[in-house]
């Protein structure tokens, strides 16, 4: 099988993969700083519908609509994050879930503007696989910057321990705002690409299936890095074609089992598994006993002292 014939057979899957990757990234950028927000899906829906509406009515050309979607969704998300600056943890997750569901209801009841429950059809298709891949690469590049160097260390620390981070001068509020901004911008981008590559959008784009897909990609792939999200998106996009000989429901069950198993044994997802294997191959530094500095206390006292904690 040559590359071009593979491409021809997989073009739609590549588009789905790219959009899924971007959608999951919109969730991962907030998770990276320890914020559990599902709002990225909401901005995905906003981006999809808004782009669909303006392009279908020929108000602005598609490329401008994409840029506008990125900027507007980013700013809306920032405002959303600012409005919810006191809401944390699962409460924030619930509020953002509510936001997504409300958008779904609005889309389903938007009359001729949104196409109601049937959704919007006939949007001119101007986006194909290369553009989606390009957009994914741009987001990966941005994520690389966000995850490396000082910003990377700061976001890592923030996810683990906010008090610790604050004590070394990391501005938790600013990081959270930036992550909301990025989340909305990436969500909006994913939405625009979605409607412009499939020509249609429906309320199910803000529904539970999309929500499940987004969370699954992040959990299965690994929430710590864009590379995990990439792995998750590849898996979720091509798994159905690898499981062709199973019935539809069986596929769902296999996927569900995969999530359960990875969630139980690999909290850092596939990426965690891979980096663990890689570490084992390199015989990495996790030593069982650290070299003595002064006079290390005997082992039993060590155990006691750590138990005091």
């Amino acid at each position, binding site marked *: 099988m040559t590359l071009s014939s593979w491409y021809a057979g997989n073009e739609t899957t590549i588009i789905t993969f790219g959009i899924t990757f971007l959608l999951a990234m919109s969730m991962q950028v907030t998770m990276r700083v320890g914020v559990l927000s599902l709002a990225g899906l909401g901005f995905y829906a906003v981006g999809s519908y808004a782009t669909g509406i303006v392009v279908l009515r020929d108000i602005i050309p598609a490329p401008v609509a994409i840029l506008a979607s990125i900027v507007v969704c980013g700013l809306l998300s920032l405002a959303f994050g600012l409005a919810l600056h006191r809401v944390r943890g699962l409460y924030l997750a619930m509020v953002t879930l509510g936001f997504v569901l409300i958008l779904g209801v609005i889309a389903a009841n938007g009359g001729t503007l949104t196409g109601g429950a049937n959704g919007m059809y006939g949007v001119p298709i101007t986006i194909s696989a290369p553009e989606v891949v390009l957009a994914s690469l741009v987001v990966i590049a941005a994520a690389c*910057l*966000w995850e*490396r*160097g*000082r*910003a*990377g*260390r*700061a976001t*890592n*620390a923030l996810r*683990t*321990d906010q*008090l*610790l*981070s*604050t*004590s*070394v*001068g*990391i*501005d*938790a*509020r600013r990081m959270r705002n*930036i992550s909301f901004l990025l989340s909305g911008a990436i969500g909006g981008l994913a939405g625009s690409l979605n409607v412009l590559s499939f020509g249609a959008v429906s309320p199910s784009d803000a529904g539970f299936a999309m929500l499940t897909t987004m969370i699954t990609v992040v959990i299965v792939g690994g929430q710590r890095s864009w590379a995990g999200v990439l792995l998750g998106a590849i898996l979720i996009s091509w798994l159905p074609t690898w499981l062709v000989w199973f019935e539809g429901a069986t596929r769902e069950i296999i996927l569900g089992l995969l999530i359960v198993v990875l969630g139980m044994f690999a909290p850092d997802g596939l990426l965690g598994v891979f980096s663990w294997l890689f570490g084992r191959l390199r015989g990495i*530094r*996790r*030593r*069982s*006993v*650290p*070299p*003595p*500095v*002064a*006079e*290390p*206390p005997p082992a039993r*006292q*060590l155990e*006691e*002292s*750590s138990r*005091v*904690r």
Partner: protein
Amino acid sequence: MSVDQVPVQAPAETAVPVLRVDDLAVHYGGIKAVDGVSFEVAPGELVGLIGPNGSGKSTLLAAVSRLTTLTRGALWLDGGRYESVQPCGPARLGIGRTFQTVRVLEEQTVRQNIQLGADLGARKAAPTTSSPLRLFGGLRRKGGSDTVDEVLERTGLQDVASVLVDELPYGLRRRVEIARALATRPRLLLLDEPLAGMTSEERADVAALVRQLHGEGLAQILVEHDVDFIVKTCPRLIALDQGKVIAEGAPADVVADDRVRTAYLGVDDDDAA
């Protein structure tokens, strides 16, 4: 020449205090955790903070490092007011701190933990102008690695630099935490019960580090339950009870003070019993 190695300045009265706390209060609902506390810390001074459980010592440290909301009061660092800064502000201005329960990133190496502090220290040493690129952390991968090496050496952690903190005994974790705070190049270091939960060897170890830093001229506030240690280590003590300063001065005098003995050492209780 590093910024934090301030030479010990001679007469404390003539110098601008590193820290000045004026009428500081932190009330949680009806509980007055800190209630009108005022004191100063001179450059290079090591001040011990004592008091019974719940007397407001940790809350006072949290207030000075602005990790808690103030009910009232004013704070100066090196003569500059700072009580209205954001939670991350004091660290940026030069207040380093450790926590009662050791807070370290356990899944990272000692070096990576200290690097987190050095990121701030490096920025202080070379403040960059505000630009969009700062959003991505200046793009430099290892800013302040000199600081990390220096701090590793000062705290005697060179040999475990590449060990995961997860693998270290509690005493060394505390040292990592202190090292991280030092890497931020603080003007003032706040240590909240650095000896708590340690074996005697570990205690001696950390105590020696505190004294060493004092010798290097770093201003410190030390909260500690180990009266013996604090009396031997700190030239000046402040005693708190129910959120108020009940005694202040030379260790021997403070420990001998009747109110301190009543509140903290429980002498009256013992007599009664």
